[in-house]
């Protein structure tokens, strides 16, 4: 009985910790993403594999960006509840949104460091890298890659 109580208390503590820290980290992360997106707005990402004729002199170079992000305990609990009723799992939607945008940003940063302002044929790859015992997604990896056209002076 005592052990059962302990488990409930521990679960509640983890939920509260997850709620406050998770919210805080997510808010901070989104702020940083929005700021960096504005800074890197001049690097254009294009999903087409066809470059224009005027680009023929520019050498292409592959650039990549990747990130692994984990969902917090509270959101994981919410998502678990959601699977009972069905519907949109907003807890994971924001996680994937954060991860994709972060991966694209890191790719853009790499391109910018090479003096490129356009990235062609961007591909995004998502993988869930750890699953806990009940099969919930713990964390996702997003990899973004494309070919940056380098401006040579």
């Amino acid at each position, binding site marked *: 009985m005592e052990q059962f109580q302990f488990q409930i208390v521990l679960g509640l503590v*983890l939920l509260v*910790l*997850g709620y406050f*820290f*998770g919210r805080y*980290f*997510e808010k901070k*992360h989104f702020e940083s993403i929005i700021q960096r997106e504005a800074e890197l707005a001049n690097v254009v990402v294009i999903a087409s*594999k*066809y*470059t224009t004729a005027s*680009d*023929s*002199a*520019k*050498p*292409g*170079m*592959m650039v*990549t960006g*990747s*990130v*692994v*992000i*984990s*969902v*917090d*305990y509270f*959101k*994981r609990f919410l998502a678990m509840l959601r699977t009972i009723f069905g519907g949109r799992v907003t807890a994971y939607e924001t996680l994937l949104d954060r991860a994709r945008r*972060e991966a694209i940003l890191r790719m853009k940063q790499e391109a910018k460091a090479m003096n490129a302002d356009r990235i*062609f*044929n961007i*591909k995004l*790859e998502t*993988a*869930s*890298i*750890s*699953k806990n015992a009940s099969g919930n997604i*713990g*964390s996702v*990896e997003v*990899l973004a*890659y*494309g*070919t940056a*056209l380098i401006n040579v002076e």
Partner: protein
Amino acid sequence: MLISNLEIIPGKNITEHLGLVQGSTVRSKHVGRDLMAGIKNIFGGELVGYTELLQEAREEAVDRMKQQAQAVGANAIVNVRFSTSSVTQGAAELFAYGSAVILE
């Protein structure tokens, strides 16, 4: 060695196709990193250890792909794709593949 995920390299002609080249690696981090990731699972946020792990793995996979391309005498790899899968808890496979070609 030019690596690109475009099918056509702007301004260059492909003189010869040498077929598919690939590289893969399976990696895991030490237990300490896994423990840290477990703690981060409560608070949420980026798992820096795993990001590094996958980045290293990706570089390794690309290196192996490059070696294969060099062995067949290519000077570029075009249309490169990546794929990731988790093999077991804490280990990930990273796979890179593309077409080895000779550019003029």
